[in-house]
């Protein structure tokens, strides 16, 4: 059971990163972006390409950072992938969502995001094939943390958890200590009033896509490190990420973090009592349960 709890926390770390971008986009642009989970796939595969590229260009970067199975080139690849995915998220907004937003209704945006998800998923499959990919083919041995209860954890998983928490802490500092962070929160709460106070809505929306895309890329890589890369990973992650966003309260970054951990832990803890085939239903049950008690989610508020 404690093993499930630890696995749940690890799952929650990348779900939270994925949910942060989604909650900001859903709140500020007021549409359910079903293609957000595909940004995780994009980021994960982009890091795979950058990793191979950096390893070829500078073989010294291919050295493993023992006891991790990760290399310096993968760490650099994650950073490059964050930038690229953020820019791609921005490009998708410019080419698709912005045009639909200016002409269409909220429902048109939802359908556009469904379409975008299908396009991204299939383009990734077309380029990389349907076979699973791995960042490292080395066998990463798990460390025994405790004999009774028996708990195993891989060094890579510890890295994923620490790195995810560090990113969330950096984001927290930005949101709570900088005027840029205040502007982001102000736009999320009341876009018109933010404009009245001199906040450029257009630039803030750009920042939201860059941050959301960047964090989605990291989440995708961390999923790939914890599991494997498959072109349909976005399809598998879309529901847990949406559940994390809704449970935490749409628009709340802190809610998205908490929601990610709740969904991750609940999904893994459910394995103790339910056959694995039933665990995909856990996010649905969580959404229902939380919305019955708090209709705006744990940290969400009624819109202004």
């Amino acid at each position, binding site marked *: 059971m404690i093993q499930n709890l630890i696995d749940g926390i690890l799952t929650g770390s990348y779900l939270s990163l994925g949910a942060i971008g989604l909650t900001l986009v859903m709140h500020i642009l007021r549409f359910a972006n079903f293609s957000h989970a595909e940004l995780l796939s994009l980021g994960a595969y982009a890091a795979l390409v950058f990793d191979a590229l950096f390893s070829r260009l500078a073989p010294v970067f291919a050295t493993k950072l023992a006891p991790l199975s990760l290399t310096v080139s993968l760490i650099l690849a994650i950073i490059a992938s964050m930038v690229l995915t953020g820019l791609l998220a921005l490009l998708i907004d410019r080419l698709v969502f912005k045009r639909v937003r200016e002409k269409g209704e909220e429902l048109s945006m939802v359908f556009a995001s469904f379409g975008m998800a299908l396009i991204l998923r299939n383009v990734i499959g077309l380029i990389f094939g349907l076979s699973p990919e791995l960042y490292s083919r080395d066998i990463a041995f798990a460390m025994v943390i405790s004999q009774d209860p028996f708990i195993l954890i891989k060094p890579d998983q510890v890295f994923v958890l620490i790195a995810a928490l560090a990113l969330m802490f950096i984001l927290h500092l930005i949101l709570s200590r900088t*005027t840029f962070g205040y*502007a982001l929160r102000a736009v999320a709460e*009341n876009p*018109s*009033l*933010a404009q*009245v*106070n001199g*906040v450029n809505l257009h630039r803030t929306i750009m920042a939201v896509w860059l941050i959301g895309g960047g964090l989605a890329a990291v989440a995708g890589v961390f999923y790939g490190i914890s599991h494997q890369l498959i072109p349909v990973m976005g399809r598998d992650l879309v529901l847990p990420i949406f559940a994390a966003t809704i449970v935490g309260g749409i628009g709340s970054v802190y809610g998205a973090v908490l929601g990610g951990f709740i969904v991750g832990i609940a999904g893994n803890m459910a394995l103790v009592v339910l056959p694995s085939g039933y665990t995909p239903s856990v996010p649905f049950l969580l959404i229902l349960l939380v919305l019955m008690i708090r209709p705006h989610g744990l940290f969400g508020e009624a819109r202004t």
Partner: protein
Amino acid sequence: MPDAILNAQGVTAGYVPDLPILKDITLAVRPSQITLIIGPNGAGKSTLIKAIAGLLPVSQGKITFHGRDITGIRTDQLTSTGIAYVPQTDNIFRSLTIRQNLDLALRRAGHRGDETLRNLFDQFPALARKQRDKAGTLSGGQRQFLAIAMALATEPKLILMDEPSAGLSPKAAEEVLQHARDLTAQGVSILLVEQNVKQAMRLADHCYILAEGRNQIDGPAADLRNNNVVGDIYLGNRRIGAA
């Protein structure tokens, strides 16, 4: 009489195209004065302020501020021209602390930010005491003071105030309106929309009365206050149906 700092000439505007709420409105705001806009519900008072702030499209006419054409200005550029806008409701960020609300508004003050903040806390000591609290925890009157402080943080020459006394207790409403009066002594001009007509008329310098989106009467507030026709129709001196 000093030259007007804000001029609206023949402004026609509304929420949707081809359905104007304001029709050919003309208005002038003079420096260091309170210019009051009153009128029945639906007269277009708030719509006029929103049109000046760039929140609504202006289909005809021209708005100038210190001679510069600001018709259809982008709302986020309003503060850089020297105009601040205090909306009627939802005029603070509830999820931010009081200090964060002010810091957001102070961004443009740059290196003068600390000094400006000190001045604001001197003017609004209650905000200074609660600066680490979430703005959503403030009372109605304190919220209005925070909204006014946010407007002042941008060091405006003109503040557009949309019914600042709405929903406040009579005492809090009196304090807010008196504060608006005090600001004019600091060289700030106020364009005020108010439902609390009698109280606002006592404080205002000039008054415009709108009805059905058009100018009806305007003049010095003291003259209009003593005008029997205006008093009967707009200030409720005689109840409808009374002998």
